[in-house]
């Protein structure tokens, strides 16, 4: 992957990031495992 392609993919991700992250399964979200451990 060239720099231009890497940057393009990153820009596309940044544009869609909010909706993308929200669509991910719970276990992939940041802090999920920490919260689960704390709840034990």
């Amino acid at each position, binding site marked *: *992957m*060239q*720099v*231009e*392609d*890497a*940057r*393009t*993919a*990153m*820009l*596309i*991700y*940044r*544009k*869609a990031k909010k*909706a*993308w992250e929200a*669509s*991910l399964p719970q*276990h*992939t979200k940041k802090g999920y495992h920490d919260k689960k451990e704390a709840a034990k």
Partner: protein
Amino acid sequence: MVGVGPEGRESVVARVSIVNFHGQVLLDAYVVPKEPVTDFRTKFSGIRPKDLRPENGARPLEEVIKDVDRIIKDRILVGHALDNDLQALLLKHPRSMTRDTAYYKPFRALSSGRTPSLKLLAEQFLGVAIQTGEHSSVPWGRRSDGQC
């Protein structure tokens, strides 16, 4: 990637580039091919024979793989059709830590469920034409490294 073997159909890694969330270059390395390159695919790859010579700074694949592994470890990896790149580098990355623009469902809808090309996504989402063989037209606010 460049082509090796008969008619250059088989692909091998020739250049590895990694940028961070802000578009700054973390790694941009040419790789010394282990077998004769039969198709440099210059029109698409931008790679010329001189780029892959050790005397011009091209590095052994093993060395580049180590760098990539160190950079992406425990980080969210963003890219397009990353399976191909990771396979070529003999690396694995957790799926939960991967954001692949080729497999995100709303993006695939643009190609009637098929894998959209990065070129198509760039046109649709960024309004720019890439991979035209001309100067990069990707808009980016931070160009401190001068590579954009």
